[in-house]
């Protein structure tokens, strides 16, 4: 077996007295699509932010994170891209869409501004923003929520990172747009051969397109495994309860499709 892309060993994170993650062990395999699933407060976002080096200064981290495939600490932006939950706040309101996407490309692909703009326009087209040339000059507030999230994704993949971390990237969007964004992420990850870390509370949404799931509860990793086996025969009662809860909701078809 090839070395994992990223290896998390005995990772604990605490904010003051409160433990957000308790001795988590997890491997991320290169090229896989891994969903981190958990309720609010399960520590899934803390894991994502720890990987990205975004934790608040007061957070205390124990354990280790290694990146065997890179051989060094990852360079933010170049080695991984990060998509935030709310595209209304993750884009700077006073910079144009073009500037924000081109900035990433300029920084990590060593392009000059003109080339970076051309690159950014191509990216906007890839994430299926209508009229990319016009969107380049627009400010974030002029776009819809779904379009903004597409822009955020374009910025995250602008430097062709090997890993894309999507932290609740669909949670602030309505169901129809959610499905579109998931389809977009799925397509991009396949085309680029990127590794995807998809963090969500929605087990049904994730199970439709990922290879592996890791279920978190109260800061602990409950179970991890291939999506089919976890969903069809969960080893832990919590996972079973999580799946059972979802069966009652409108997302039924997605679950049954995977289970059958």
């Amino acid at each position, binding site marked *: 077996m090839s070395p994992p892309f990223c290896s998390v060993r005995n990772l604990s994170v605490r904010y003051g007295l409160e433990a957000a993650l308790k001795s988590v062990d997890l491997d991320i395999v290169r090229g896989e699509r891994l969903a981190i699933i958990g309720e609010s407060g399960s520590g899934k976002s803390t894991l994502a932010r720890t990987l990205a080096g975004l934790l608040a200064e007061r957070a205390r981290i124990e354990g280790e994170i290694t990146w065997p495939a890179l051989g060094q600490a990852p360079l933010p932006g*170049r080695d991984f891209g990060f998509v935030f939950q709310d595209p209304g706040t*993750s884009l*700077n309101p006073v910079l144009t869409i073009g500037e924000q996407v081109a900035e*990433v490309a300029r920084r990590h692909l060593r392009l000059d501004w003109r080339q970076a703009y051309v690159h950014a326009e191509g990216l906007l087209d890839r994430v299926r923003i209508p009229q990319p040339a016009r969107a380049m000059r627009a400010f974030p507030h002029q776009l819809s929520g779904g379009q903004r999230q597409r822009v955020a994704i374009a*910025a995250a993949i602008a430097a062709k990172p090997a890993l894309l971390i999507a932290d609740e990237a669909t949670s602030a969007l309505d169901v129809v747009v959610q499905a579109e964004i998931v389809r977009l992420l799925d397509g991009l990850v396949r085309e680029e051969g990127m590794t995807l870390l998809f963090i969500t509370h929605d087990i049904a949404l994730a199970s439709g397109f990922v290879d592996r799931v890791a279920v978190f509860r109260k800061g602990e990793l409950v179970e991890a495994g291939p999506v089919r086996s976890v969903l069809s025969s969960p080893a832990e009662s919590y996972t079973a309860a999580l799946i059972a809860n979802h069966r009652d909701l409108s997302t039924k078809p997605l679950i049954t499709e995977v289970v059958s």
Partner: protein
Amino acid sequence: MTLLKRLLRTPEGTIGLVILAALLIAGLLAPAISPGDPLRIAGRALLSPFSDPSLPLGTDRLGRDVLAGLLYGARTSLAVGIAAALSAMLLGLFVGMAAGFAGGAIDEALMRVVDAFQIVPGFLLALAFVSIIGVSTPVVVFAIALGTWADPARLTRAQVLSIRERDYVAAARVIGMHPAEIAFKEILPNALPPVLALSATIVAGAILTEAALSFLGLGNPNLATWGSMIAEGRSVLRSAAYLSVLPGLALAITVLGVHLFSEGLTRALGHEGDSR
């Protein structure tokens, strides 16, 4: 410029802008309208207004042209007011950014310095400073700035503290931006609007402080200023009230104009987020 359009859509912004533009033009055209030194003796002393076409607003006790004094005074007032406010804003922005961004001990230390400046009345500070260092325009500008930089510093710090926690700052960090770049490119432009709205109030305060300093004889004696004109006219207030009233009116209109402009600016900036 959409900001200008939005500013002109508010009545107070329009009036303020017109007043300020008129003052600016008056100040700029002063040498053309009243050539020569405004402090020279231009005619008979204490000539009342509208009695001599060549001296439309009359003369003061020493026979100096009141209109020339008002026009050149507008220059001094605006120049000193804007320069002082600009230096106060720059200093305040710099200190506020540093405090908010660095946090910890640096923040604490800088904020205690800000406290120290906020508890001393700005005017007394300026008065003490000018009387110790001596009178010259740069000193007056600096003295006024010294008393007013604390407010923008505090406001900037509060803005930075809030903005640095926003997702787009985190997003800038995950694309590998340098902290200094984040400060100037991501945070500063978003922290600016409320500080900008405060700037007009600071200009108004600075103009008043400058006038008060000149009134007390601590303005540059080689420049015509409204404060010194009011002080000059004070001794003949009963017989020639116009000597104090005219520069006083000019001062009042200027400060009113600045305040209206600031009000309009605040409203225009408040609508910034609207996608209309």
